[in-house]
């Protein structure tokens, strides 16, 4: 059943207070680090000080002899796992690599790589014990930069890594894990057809998701092999599966409890601490708690990929783009698995271009293994493409928005990566941008305006949900997805809409792995879409049951009962004359009419509608300092149907904010030894509220026919356009094209110095 008629909706589309709001405001919510158990030990991870080194020996005797130390683990305490490719979590995964990433075996591959861990009776003792662990290293040459890592003479991280996707298979190991490619039309014919061509090179930096809550967990492993894990993650079922795999435990013996999560953005779709705490707990026979410091988060966990993007565009003089080439070289970190595939598919997805050739490389280097971050890979390629589109507009002397309108993908357009678009709302975002008041706002000296667009697929996947009717007529919605972006509220709203009762009478619960069926993790903007579909179906099953119970009370056929606004009514005069029965009245008699009323639904949701966005950014450049001030920002996005508009706007504003950070300031700074120099928020500058204006979010609603309420994922695409939007605005403000991120004050100053005559001392 669908509920796409917006006018008939009473709850979906409104803005109620989130169910977990009070807990989070007053500090009652329990995050990963809040859990405490009797007899609990404190764990601490010893990390590599080298970017690349062979581990010659690890001596733990002195650490074990320290009073209060109860266990020490190294890679020797983890089972050897064969190299096994699988698509789990949020992308391709090799469980051997995941195991080695949690605990180095044989070699350390980046500064901060875990080499051992201690469990002790206090954090101070655990810390002291890690200092007593003696690791003898043979330091090896290292490589940080993606193109340096691709050179034939680069230090090789893995001697069994041979480039996939090239024919013949290379005879020599290298740091290039994979080559991917996509083609459409005849690129040579496209270049012949083009009347103007433009070719540019852009670079992006790996950036951290910068979630406020560091990774934290408590693990209790019993002598009977049964384990309980409390942790902050984007998926309790993911934690359970990975720990089972890495420690060789049956999944049924692990119960994973979801803590509240203080931000993830893709960075908590992997495990780092949980398998280590589990190994320590098994060894010590007591619960173990580990909480990362901010420095550990930066040094030991995955950032988003950065890389090099080369773009070539060919167009007719009227603005029609007829050919495009895209080359993407992405950082994977220490193990293969950058999002180079999505980067290649997303970069040109907004446009209808007849001849396209795209090539991408997945490259390892001595950095932490990358993790997902909103729309993984898309921000990189899109920064290149959307900057280059602007440069093409300049060459064509055409308004940048007009150039995008001319070439916009529509329903029926064949995308560069293959599929033919259906039911997309990209043009509508361009129309909304044109109609917005933003474009008519005046600009002053050193101020400029930039436009950029973006695309992300969105996903569905496996979700379970249950709806229980309580004795007093309230309802409990049980789901298996941690609530990152307000999904408790959206689940409760959809259930309330179907049941026909007030939102406040529905209580959503995020359950542990033993209390609800399997649910794929919270990521890919899938929860409101996929889990929302499961919740809606469960609520519909409950309504069917409520009608049966009413029919039983009235002694009529269930077919003769209608459900409207939370009440059962006789379907017509022939059904009989009865006073309506409310859900509350039916719930009160549930024991007499057949027992508890509840339903659980497990689905594999398909048909997540794609996300398109158009952003407009105004900046002012301080020529003296190189500082870029964001004056105005408007984010326009096809959101399908906003279930809770405030949280949709919040996702859009959050994605923009993170994109602005990626654009202007964020980068990892390594010293010449390959050690991270800025592992903290003082030196790794993320935007704060005072840096930004109010970001205007304009929601375009092109409902997704595959979702009962028309929802599409909304949390990924908002981070895709901002880097190019800011770069385009800077170019408009000062006439200088910044092609390398971050566009930080020192780089702006250097660029300005290169363009301006030296100032006289008298000035």
């Amino acid at each position, binding site marked *: 059943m669908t509920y796409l008629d917006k006018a008939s909706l009473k709850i979906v589309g409104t803005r109620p207070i989130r169910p977990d709001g009070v807990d989070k405001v007053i500090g009652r919510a329990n995050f990963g680090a809040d859990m405490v158990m009797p007899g609990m030990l404190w764990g601490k991870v010893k990390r590599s000080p080298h970017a690349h080194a062979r581990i010659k020996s690890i001596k733990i005797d002195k650490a074990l002899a320290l009073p209060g130390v109860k266990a020490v683990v190294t890679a020797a305490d983890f089972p050897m796992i064969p190299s096994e490719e699988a698509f789990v979590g949020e992308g391709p995964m090799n469980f051997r690599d995941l195991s080695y990433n949690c605990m180095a075996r044989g070699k350390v591959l980046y500064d901060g790589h875990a080499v051992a861990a201690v469990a002790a009776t206090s954090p101070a003792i655990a810390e002291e014990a890690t200092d007593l662990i003696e690791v003898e290293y043979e330091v090896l040459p290292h490589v940080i930069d993606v193109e340096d890592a691709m050179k034939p003479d680069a230090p090789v991280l893995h001697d069994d890594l041979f480039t996939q996707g090239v024919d013949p298979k290379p005879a020599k190991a290298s740091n290039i894990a994979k080559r991917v490619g996509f083609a459409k039309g005849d690129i040579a014919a496209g270049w012949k057809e083009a009347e103007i061509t433009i070719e540019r090179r852009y670079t992006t930096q790996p950036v951290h998701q910068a979630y406020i809550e560091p990774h934290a967990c408590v693990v209790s492993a019993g002598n009977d092999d049964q384990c309980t894990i409390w942790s902050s993650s984007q998926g309790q079922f993911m934690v359970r599966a990975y720990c089972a795999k890495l420690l060789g435990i049956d999944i049924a013996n692990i119960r994973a409890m979801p803590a509240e999560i203080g931000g993830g953005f893709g960075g908590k779709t992997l495990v780092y601490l949980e398998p280590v705490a589990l190994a320590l707990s098994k060894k010590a026979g007591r619960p173990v708690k580990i909480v990362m410091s901010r420095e550990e988060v930066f040094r030991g966990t995955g950032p988003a990929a950065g890389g090099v993007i080369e773009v070539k565009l060919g167009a007719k003089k009227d603005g029609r783009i007829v050919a495009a080439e895209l080359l993407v070289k992405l950082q994977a970190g220490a193990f293969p698995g950058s999002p180079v595939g999505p980067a290649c598919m997303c970069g040109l997805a907004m446009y209808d271009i007849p001849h396209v050739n795209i090539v991408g490389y997945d490259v390892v280097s001595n950095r932490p293994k990358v993790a997902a971050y909103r729309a993984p890979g898309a921000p990189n390629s899109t920064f290149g493409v959307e900057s280059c589109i602007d440069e093409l507009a300049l060459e064509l002397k055409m308004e940048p928005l007009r150039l995008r309108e001319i070439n916009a993908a529509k329903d029926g357009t064949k995308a560069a990566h293959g599929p033919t678009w259906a039911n997309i709302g990209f043009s509508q975002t361009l129309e909304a941008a044109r109609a917005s008041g933003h474009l008519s706002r005046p600009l002053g000296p050193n101020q400029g305006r930039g436009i950029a667009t973006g695309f992300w697929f969105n996903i569905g996947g496996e979700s379970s949900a249950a709806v229980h009717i309580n004795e007093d007529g309230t309802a409990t919605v049980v789901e298996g997805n941690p609530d990152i972006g307000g999904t408790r509220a959206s689940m409760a709203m959809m259930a309330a809409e179907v049941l026909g009762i007030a939102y406040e009478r529905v209580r959503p619960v995020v359950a542990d792995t033993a209390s609800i069926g399997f649910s794929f993790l919270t990521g890919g903007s899938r929860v409101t879409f996929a889990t929302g579909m499961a919740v809606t179906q469960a609520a519909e099953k409950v309504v069917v049951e409520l009608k049966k119970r009413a029919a039983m009370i009235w002694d009529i056929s269930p077919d003769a009962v209608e459900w409207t606004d939370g009440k059962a009514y006789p379907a017509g005069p022939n059904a009989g004359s009865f006073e309506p029965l409310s859900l509350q009245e039916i719930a009160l008699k549930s024991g007499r009419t057949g027992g508890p009323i509840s339903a659980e639904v497990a689905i594999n949701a*398909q048909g997540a509608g794609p996300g398109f966005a158009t952003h407009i950014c105004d900046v002012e450049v301080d020529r003296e300092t190189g500082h870029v001030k964001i004056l105005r920002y408007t984010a326009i996005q096809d959101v399908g149907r906003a279930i809770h508009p405030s949280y949709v706007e919040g996702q859009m504003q959050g994605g923009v904010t993170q994109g602005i950070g990626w654009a202007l300031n964020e980068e990892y700074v390594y010293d010449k030894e390959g050690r991270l120099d800025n592992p903290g928020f003082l030196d790794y500058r993320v935007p704060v509220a005072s840096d930004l204006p109010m970001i205007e979010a304009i929601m375009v609603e092109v409902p997704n026919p595959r979702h009962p309420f028309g929802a599409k994922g909304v*949390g990924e695409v908002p981070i895709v356009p901002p880097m190019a939007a800011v770069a385009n605005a800077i170019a408009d403000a000062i006439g200088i094209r910044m092609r390398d991120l971050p566009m930080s004050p020192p780089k702006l100053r250097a660029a300005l110095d290169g363009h301006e005559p030296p100032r006289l001392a008298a000035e």
Partner: protein
Amino acid sequence: MPRVVLAGVAARRFTGGQSEFEVEADTVRRMIVELDRRFPGLGQQIDESMAVAIDGEIFQDAYMAQLNPDSEIVLIPKIGGG
């Protein structure tokens, strides 16, 4: 008969470089079985690392998804997210 396009180059190692096929199948599962029969190893590759776009709509891990005789089917890398 549905026409299947292998969008990326990575899986073409199983097909000798061929990228388009006509496949007698009415579900994704039957399509995978048939492709694996013709190109041993391709079925596992699709199972583990590819999504299926049917008439522009992306399906992942969906054996039961229906294919129509005139369906446009494109095999692309699987999609995750953040």
